[in-house]
C-alpha cells in the first residue's frame, strides 16, 4: 500500500465496460470490438464468473483465450472453450429475448443511442463508407440491453470546424437506440430494451427514464462536465450527483494486463488519449 500505481485510459475503459456486465447473464460481443473482447473475459474472471460468455463470431462458449488477437474471428478465440455453437444459434437466443447483453459502437451516436456504422451521405451518393453494422441492426433490437462504447468522444477540430461522434442526428441509423427515426422502441414492438450504458473516454452515461436520452453519470479524474459538453453536439442531461468514477484496484488492472498482453485494448484510440495517465 501507499505506492502509487499508474494506469491508462485503455485500462479504465475496459474496466468501465466490464462493469456493465452482471453475473449470471448471457453476453456476446460483435466484430471490431477489442474493448468488449477484453472486458467480457475480464468480467468472466472476476465479478461475473457464472455469465455465459460467447466469444464473438467465432462462437465458442466460455473460451479461455491465451491472449487477444486484433481480429474477432480466429482460433485464438476458441481455445479452452466449453463448447462450440454456430453463430446463428447466438442470434436465435437474441430473437427469443434471451441474450442479456451485447456491445456496439458507431462513427456517429445520437442522444437516444442510435448509431451509424454504415455511411455518411446516401446509398446512391455515399461520401464515406464505414464498415457496416454486422449483427448490430438485429441485435440492437433483440438484446435485452446493450452497452455502447466509443474511444472517440472527444470532438476533433479541423480548421474552424468541429467534428463530433456524439451528434444531434445520425446521417444513417444502423443500430437502433431508444427513439428511432421510425418511432420509439415500444411502438416498433422490438424484443429488447435498448442501450442502458454509454462508456466513452470522457465519461460514462446512462439514459434518463422519461426522455430516453443520454445522462452523464461519471467522469474520469481528468475530465470535467465542460469537457463533455464541449465534445457533445447535443446537450446531454447531467445527473445531479455526477462525480468521478470509482477507480479499479491495482490487482484488477493487473488482470487486464495479463489477459491482453498484445494490448488490443489500445487499438481504437487517437494517440493523444493513450498518453493520459491516472494514479491509483
Amino acid at each position, binding site marked *: 500500500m501507499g505506492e502509487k500505481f499508474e494506469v491508462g485510459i485503455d485500462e479504465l475503459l475496459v474496466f468501465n465496460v466490464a462493469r456493465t456486465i452482471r453475473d449470471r447473464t448471457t453476453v456476446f460481443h*460483435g466484430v471490431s470490438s477489442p474493448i468488449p473482447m477484453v472486458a467480457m473475459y475480464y468480467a468472466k474472471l472476476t465479478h461475473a464468473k457464472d455469465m455465459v460468455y460467447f466469444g464473438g463470431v467465432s462462437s465458442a462458449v466460455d473460451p479461455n483465450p491465451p491472449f487477444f488477437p486484433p*481480429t474477432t474471428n480466429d482460433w485464438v478465440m476458441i481455445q479452452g472453450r466449453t463448447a462450440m455453437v454456430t453463430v446463428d444459434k447466438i442470434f436465435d437466443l437474441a430473437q427469443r429475448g434471451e441474450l442479456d447483453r451485447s456491445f456496439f459502437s458507431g462513427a456517429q451516436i445520437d442522444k437516444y443511442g442510435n448509431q451509424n456504422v454504415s455511411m455518411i451521405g446516401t446509398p446512391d451518393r455515399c461520401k464515406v463508407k464505414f464498415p457496416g453494422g454486422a449483427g448490430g*441492426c438485429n*441485435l*440492437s433490437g433483440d438484446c435485452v440491453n446493450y452497452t455502447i462504447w466509443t474511444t472517440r468522444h472527444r470532438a476533433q477540430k479541423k480548421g474552424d470546424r468541429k467534428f463530433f461522434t456524439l451528434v444531434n442526428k445520425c446521417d444513417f441509423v444502423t443500430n437502433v437506440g431508444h427513439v428511432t427515426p421510425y418511432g420509439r422502441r415500444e411502438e416498433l414492438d*422490438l424484443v429488447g430494451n435498448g442501450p442502458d450504458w454509454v462508456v466513452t473516454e470522457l465519461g460514462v452515461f446512462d439514459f434518463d427514464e422519461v426522455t430516453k436520452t443520454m445522462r452523464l453519470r461519471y467522469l474520469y479524474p481528468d475530465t470535467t462536465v465542460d469537457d463533455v459538453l464541449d465534445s457533445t453536439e447535443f446537450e446531454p442531461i447531467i445527473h445531479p450527483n455526477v462525480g468521478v468514477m470509482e477507480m479499479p484496484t491495482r490487482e484488477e488492472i493487473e488482470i487486464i494486463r495479463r489477459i491482453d498482453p498484445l494490448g488490443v485494448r489500445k487499438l481504437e484510440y487517437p494517440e493523444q488519449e493513450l498518453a493520459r495517465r491516472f494514479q491509483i
Partner: protein
Amino acid sequence: MEEAASTIRDGDVVAIGGGLCMREPMAMLRELVRQGRRNLHIVGTAHGFDVDFACGGGIVGAVEETHVSFEQDFGLAPNYRRACETGQVRIKENCCNTVIMQLRASEFGIPFVPMRSIKGSDEIKLHPEFKPMVDPFTGKKIVLVPALTPDVAIIHAQKADIHGNLKILPPYVADVLFIRASKRVIVTAEEIVSEEKMIEEGPTIPYYETTAVVNAPFGAHPTSCYPYYAYDREHISEYMKSAKEGADAFKNRYLDKYVYGVKSPEEYLEKVGGNVKRERLASWKESRERWMELFTYG
C-alpha cells in the same frame, strides 16, 4: 481451378465463405479476377480481405455483406470504400441475422421469414424487398424478408475427398448455411484426402450438397486456415499499402504481382514467401509466444 471458376458467370449472386480474415476462398477469387469476371453480386456476413480484394479486382457489382473491414488491425477496407464511394458497386449492406434468416428460408424451401428486428433501422432503405407488416396472429409489427438463394457458394474447406465430402473445422461462420441455401457449391480444399480417411473423420458436409471440388493448398492465404496456417499479417500489411494509395497502385503493385502474373499455386506460394513463410504461419501451434508473434509482424 480454371474450369471450376469458369462456371461462375457474370452477374451471379455469389456467397463467399469464411469471414473477416479467416478461411476465405482466396485462390478462387484470384482466379475470378484473372478470368475478368464482372458484376458479381456478393452476399454474406462479416467479411474483410476477400470482399476488399474482389472490389479492388473489379469483379463486383453489388455488395450485400453486413460488414467489410480489417477490424482494428488495419481498419477500414480501402478498395471496398473506394468502390462504394465512386459508385462502382451498389451498396446493399445487410445485417447478420437477417442474412442468416434469409438463408434459412432458402434452406427450408420456404419463400420468406418474418423477423422482429430491423425495425427502426435505416437498413430497410437499402432493401426495398423487405416488407413491413402486421403479424396476423399477434397484431405486432414484423418485417418479412425473402429467401436468399445464391447462384453459387464458394467455400474453402480444410479437407475434401474426390466425391465432394467436406471436412470443415469450426468456426463455420455461415458456410453450412451457404452450402444448403445455394444452387451450386464450389469448394477449394487445403487437402484432398481418401474416401476412407474422410469417412473415418466424419464429413461436415456430405457429397450430394457440393457441386465441384478443387485442390488448393494455401488457398485461403493470406487469410487463416487453421490448423495449417494463421493469417499472414506481413502480406496483408503490404496489400494495405498499395490498396490505400489508390486503384492504380493496387493494380500495378499488387494485382500484377500476385494475381495476373501467377500461373500456378506453387508460383503463388513462392511469391508470397515460399516454404519459409508457410512454416512460419504454421508455427502458431508451437507455443503461445510464437502464436502472439504472428499478430505483430509485418
